[in-house]
């Protein structure tokens, strides 16, 4: 076992992990942060997307040891301490950007990564960026709408594809 230390949602976190322990396992099983989901476990679906040093990564395809010293952000750190949703989360609620909600943590984290680098994306850019996030309920349309709304853009005119 090796001790790893990292910052998760602004707070120090540490634990003993095996070489093979995935970042997502460490977050869920050691830290109890079960908001990050494991959907496919083969880096296709994106339900496990978290940020490592500000970049979106699939936590099922990164070893916990490799996050040593990193700043990790998960879905649990998105809302305010009193539970007030952040802009992206609120937009997902307002625009019905989820049904079962399983993919939502990854969608929100991917959306946050996109809007950080590209604050006013086009619809096409949003769809392209979500290439690695799979949703089996919504047909994506309302997710795209929610992200456009979160970026402060008018969504009334967005037609379904």
């Amino acid at each position, binding site marked *: 076992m*090796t001790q790893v230390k990292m910052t998760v949602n602004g707070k120090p976190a540490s634990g003993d992990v*095996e*070489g*093979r322990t*995935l970042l997502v396992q460490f977050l869920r099983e050691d830290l109890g942060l079960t908001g990050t989901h494991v959907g496919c*476990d*083969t*880096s*296709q679906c*994106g339900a496990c*997307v978290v940020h490592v040093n500000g*970049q*979106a*990564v*699939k936590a099922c*395809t*990164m*070893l916990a*040891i*490799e996050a*040593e010293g990193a700043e990790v952000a998960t879905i649990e750190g998105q809302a305010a301490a009193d539970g007030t949703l952040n802009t992206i989360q609120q937009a997902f609620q307002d625009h019905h950007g989820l049904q079962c909600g399983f993919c939502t943590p990854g969608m929100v984290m*991917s959306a946050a*990564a*996109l809007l950080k680098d590209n604050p006013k994306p086009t619809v096409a850019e949003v769809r392209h*960026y979500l*290439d*690695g*996030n799979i949703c089996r309920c919504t047909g994506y349309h309302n997710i795209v709408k929610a992200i456009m709304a979160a970026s402060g853009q008018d969504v009334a005119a967005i037609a379904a594809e």
Partner: protein
Amino acid sequence: MYNFDVERPATIAQAVKALSTEEAQPMSGGQTLIPTLKARLAMPSVLVSLSGIDEMKGVRKNDDGLLCIGGGTTHTTVATEAAAHYPGLAELAARIGDPAVRNRGTLGGSIANNDPSACYPAAVLGSGATVVTNSREIAADDYFLGMFETALHEGELVTEVKFPIPQASHYEKHLQPASRFPLVAVFVAKFEEGVRVAVTGASESGVFRWTEAEEALSGSFKSDTLKDLTLDGSGMISDLHGSGAYRAHLATVMTRRAVDAISD
């Protein structure tokens, strides 16, 4: 996954030393290797993670005008930092996998693995690049030896790739949407001294140069010059996504489109 120990060297020298132990395996971004480990298709006792080696990261132009990219540079970094120097290469990098995969996956990892459907081998071979390792330099034409086979020795690391910058280039990819790998893709690079055409995703021997097309295009750089050229479907990958003949045909279509994209 079977368990293993992880070493995180900070320099190339430390990594080479760590890899001298038997059953040690290097890992760059891990976007292919971690799924492989999960499937128990590899069982190293020591995994040497290269992600902490800063001297293997970065994009720079050297005095000879070559674009030198560290083996540990992520696709995201190449997509951004190579854009001003070599747009065809940056656009290829920007379309590998998905954004989260591009934030971890690396150039060196891709070409060390040499997946027969990977994107980067097409750019490296199509540019006539030089693969730099911890011990030598290997011309792209001598580097790719077959499906998942390269000229690398055990424990040898791709530390850098040096790309000559063409006058124009384009990567045309027919996506296999489930894997996000190309079903077939073609990299066309137009240099002053001639044209290079590299095809990935098609052959059972991995990436290859389509020399007939190169000769035709070096004479006249128009897609029409290719209209009578065909590729043989034997030796092409045949699976549920497409037969060998289909892939051979697709490679010719992708080549023409790439040429059109450059000519337009």
